[in-house]
């Protein structure tokens, strides 16, 4: 079982989690990641400029397709009963949930690793772009080198 969804409307992580659990009654372990919109720029809340709003642009068609590719890759690597990835688009405010990732397995190690893998790869592969509004006006968010490094941990050696 898999769910991939790109949606312009609000994302309710609690409702999504309960729906996911209901669909996966036999899984012993469920790992979830929720990304929320931060109200500061960059990596450090102490020094980052305040961010008041965000627009999330995506590549319709490819975004859903690429999330599906990531989910299939996760299912190849781990024993998973169910996987769900939901990503927001459009206008967001600080604290709004941006992304919801869930992985269910009989074994918690599989669920936890798959969930980490999914968010790491999603960050560097899924075609979404954030535009933040600060007191300086709107600007596109730069990709973070730290995300590339984390994503690379999951690359398999080429044959």
């Amino acid at each position: 079982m898999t769910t991939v969804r790109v949606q312009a409307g609000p994302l309710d992580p609690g409702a999504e989690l309960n729906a996911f659990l209901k669909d996966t009654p036999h899984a012993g372990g469920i790992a979830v990641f929720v990304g929320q919109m931060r109200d500061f720029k960059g990596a450090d809340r102490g020094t980052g400029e305040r961010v008041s709003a965000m627009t999330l642009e995506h590549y319709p068609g490819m975004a859903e397709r690429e999330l599906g590719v990531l989910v299939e890759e996760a299912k190849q690597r781990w024993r998973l009963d169910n996987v769900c990835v939901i990503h927001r688009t459009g206008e967001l405010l600080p604290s709004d949930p941006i992304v919801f990732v869930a992985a269910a397995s009989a074994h918690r190690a599989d669920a936890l690793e798959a969930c980490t893998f999914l968010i790491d790869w999603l960050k560097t592969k899924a075609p979404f772009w954030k535009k933040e509004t600060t007191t300086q006006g709107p600007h596109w968010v730069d990709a973070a080198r730290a995300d590339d490094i984390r994503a690379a941990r999951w690359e398999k050696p080429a044959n």
Partner: protein
Amino acid sequence: MAIHVLYFASVKEKVGLGEEHVSPPASVATVSDLMDWLAARSPKYASAFANRATIKSAVDQTHVPLSTALGEAREVAFFPPVTGG
């Protein structure tokens, strides 16, 4: 060869449009060639593709390196590194 070209995020803003259909000459064989050909169209395009190291591309909705042959490609997209999640 008619290709549906899409631009996203900062590339879209610089080009000034989100998508268009183009018919490059046969000499445009790779994604990189297509980028060169587009960049020669106007200062807006030139600005969008000025820093190639920061441009990513997808052919028919799959990430590809710029060296990829266009072949039978119907849809080619250009965009900065992704920042979702």
